[in-house]
């Protein structure tokens, strides 16, 4: 990886930097997901509930991601909006086994979509139906309809079942997001 970095640098293919916001209810697996994206020697061993937020960095396909891993605890959810303005992508994580709080997740999503800093922008949203390994977790189809994703008109979105502990499903998901970001922000410039 180190060698690759240097090569792209030499070839003038400078890494593009983007900010993504990682949100979702507490305990949905946000920090675990981001931890998985990081280089193996950078990863934390034990993940504790986030208080406030954390900034993490990782790279994928020559795009440098700066991820704002927000706390999903209800005390902090109102603070997400401070970080809407300057992000180029959103990862919205749902605990697909937490049927009880699906309505809460929907409510937060609605608030996000209506927010002035988000509503009018063509900003890709990646939904991760996390904890797919757990028994009676909801399918992506059920989640999509539960969250009312088909309403989203002006933004590219994508939903994917994942297991953040094993990493299953994460690779194609981040690939989708990277392509979207590349299309919207990088190639256009």
């Amino acid at each position, binding site marked *: 990886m180190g060698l690759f970095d240097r090569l792209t640098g030499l070839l003038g293919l400078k890494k593009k930097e983007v900010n993504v916001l990682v949100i979702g209810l507490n305990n949905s697996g946000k920090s675990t997901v981001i931890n998985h994206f990081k280089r193996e020697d950078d990863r934390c061993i034990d993940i504790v509930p986030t*208080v*406030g*937020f*954390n900034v993490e960095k990782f790279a994928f396909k020559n795009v440098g991601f*700066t991820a*704002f891993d927000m706390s999903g605890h209800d005390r*902090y959810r109102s603070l997400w909006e401070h970080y809407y303005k*300057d992000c*180029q992508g959103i990862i919205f994580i749902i605990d697909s086994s937490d049927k009880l709080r699906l309505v809460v997740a929907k409510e937060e999503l609605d608030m996000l979509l209506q927010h002035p800093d988000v509503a009018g922008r063509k900003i890709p949203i990646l939904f991760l139906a996390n904890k797919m390994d757990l028994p009676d977790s909801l399918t992506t189809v059920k989640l999509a309809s539960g969250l009312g994703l088909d309403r989203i008109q002006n933004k590219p979105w994508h939903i994917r079942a994942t297991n953040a502990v094993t990493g299953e499903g994460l690779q194609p998901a981040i690939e989708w997001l990277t392509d979207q970001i590349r299309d919207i922000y990088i190639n256009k410039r």
Partner: protein
Amino acid sequence: MNAFKRDKKEEEDGGGNPFQNMEKTTVLQEARTFNDTPVNPRKCAHILTKILYLINQGEQLGTTEATEAFFAMTKLFQSRDVVLRRLVYLGIKELSSVAEDVIIVTSSLTKDMTGKEDLYRAAAIRALCTITDGGMLAAIERYMKQAIVDKSPAVSSAALVSSLHLTSVSGDVARRWANEAQEALNSDNVMVQYHALGVLYQARKSDKHAVTKLVSKLTRTSLKSPYAACMLIRMACKLLDEDEGAGELYEFVESCLRHKSEMVVYEAAHALVNLGRSGSRELASPISVLQLFCGSPKPALRFAAVRTLNKMAMSHPAAVTACNLDLENLITDSNRSIATLAITTLLKTGAESSVDRLMKQIATFVSEISDEFKVVVVQAIRALCQKFPRKHAVLMNFLSAMLRDEGGLEYKAAIADTIIAVMEGNTEAKEAGLAHLCEFIEDCEHTSLAVRILHLLGQEGPTSKQPSRYIRFIYNRVILESASVRAAAVTALAHFAASCPPLLPNVLVLLSRCQLDSDDEVRDRAAYYCAILQQQNDPTLLPLIQPPLLSIPSLEGALRNYIRSSMDQPFDISQVPPAQTVEEPTQTEILSNIKQQPRLTREESFMEKLSQIPQLATVTRDCPLFKSSAVCELTESETEYNVKCVKHSFANHLILQFDCLNTLTDQLLEDVRVTVEPPEGYTLIGEIPCPRLAYNEPGTTYIVLEYPKDIQASVATIPTTLRFTARDCDPATGIPDAEQGYDDEYMLEDLEVTLADQMRGSAGRGLDFSAAWDAAAARGFSELEETFALGASVTTLEAAVRSLIGFLGLGAAELSDRVPSGTVGHTLLLGGVFRGGKQVLARARLALADEQVTMQLSVRSPDPDVAELITSSVG
């Protein structure tokens, strides 16, 4: 010359400061750059520095502004620039008290404090603690405990110090983390050990027994860190001052005089000389240490030693004399602060003969030292004038030269105060002092000081040898100065006219000119004084020119009552207590510039409290509080309950205020009262119980009595008892058991109502005693005269004067409370008011023979009963 001036001005404006003339709104606007991706560390660091600069200049940020800047700043966490990150920590600390939702950075900071980047860890801990509130404490506890025992000293120290700061968030933090602190105490690092000791002390602070144990354990080990050793010395001395653990601790502190670190040695010496119990024998070894330090090549040690000696010079002059030779060597020290302290110490302890030489030495560099040290010099001179009255001429000249120098208000005021004090203590110095002050106000840039001096000239000038010479100086002010100075000058002129009839015609001419002044206040004063002075020669007019200084809140209250009354009697101003005269402390602590706040008198502040109690309104509504006694203890110290009493006298009533304290952890007292048996003639009007008295929470109960109609019966002894319902309770929580309480009582000491409780001394410098004494005869006051032989405990005239003033509660006039030394006869002139506004004048002729003082006491008062009461209570 012009160019030079400009340069100087620029320098004052902060010439080379790149941050000057910054505007808050512009800077906050720039802070939006923080939101940009990618972050530009250099640019952001510069903007953040500006914000920090503004905050440190005292700029206030509103909540919204601060919150916006704070959240923008949180985005900088994405940058890996070390400098920027550390600035972010500072920003968090500064904004944490203003911005909202600052806990948003908790995880980011805990990540940094546990991360790999050592440069982040300590600073992140400090920032984290400023954003942590009681609710968040649990979330960071684990990290803090780990950090305290971290192997990096910086991290461990930061965590320990932060735990101390966190005690303001949650009181028991130190106790909860004491195990970790105990481990940190074994650290090899000097700072960590010191900070760990701080936390351990904090954890035990409220438990004296535990502190004693900690200290005595540590005094037996030897702490590696000199800082920790210094702290241990302080802890030991605090215990010693509280009479705890005596001998062993004292030996420990003394042994520290032989410590290998100079810092510890100094700390021990300083502690020993300041220990209340130290006598001359105990002082010898610490003094010899300080003496040694006086000769040290290190300026800091010399300074510390000489500063300590300077402070001691007042309390232990003899002990300090041992170092005179060493101090002499320091008077030419190139460090002027050391030299000043050395000279002023010598002045305080030295002989009269060395005064001239030392003053000459000081004069060579007084212009080079800062105002703060000049004030030290002035204070030393003041002490000298008291000690060597004959030297006043040299010292006065020196002071007047200092007065002509440049200097700030505080310094100038200290000089003027000293001149005034010297004049008061020494009539010979008065003429010279007034002349110096006159000269000074010719060119005085401080309005407040000019006003004070003009007031003083008005007070003292008329009785000087040649009053007319001051008129010109004063009138010059009327022509040249600002309105407030002009007004003061007008009042001073009026004082001269009122007390020196020969000057009256001329002053009237001047005052009539002042009636054309452009300022309302000046004109009003001039018109008022002209009107009064034109009525000539009526001695009763004098108080109208020099009104007594009355307590303004009491005067206001009395006038309001008067307006509510039918107003057919003239208003009686003698009911109104005088204003607090701010007594200058005679031994001002050197280098401590504590400002005297304008304060309320005891009576004013008590009245404020009493008038808030509805049950007392019958007394407090109609009548001002006449006098509040000193506090009397009705219990021995260290008893279960502690009761103190203050006696508040009104014209016809006596309110007894009992302040009670319950020192039993396992008892809750309810319905607490102090019951009294009213002595003959007294009537019990009411009592106000204290509903509950929990452990260590003070409570107050009151008794209202009416004074007897017969004034003679008012001096009495009142037996008192504390009564209450006691309930047992859990010592830890203070929650009482379910059981019913039981009634109990507790005998208290008897309470004495004395003459002084009902008398207010008023005389002071304003009163011309012989005029008043004669006027009293003319107005038909009754007079009583008796001769007494004072008891065997009074063997000197000074003691007789002191006990007489204390006993009668009267005030001395014309400085007659100062007994010239070596005399065998003295006349004490006293004045005051008895409750109900009855004037009292007394003259005591004292004679000393064979250690026996005899006294002929004459009392004049409009009320014969009052005069009788006074003579009868002396006998």
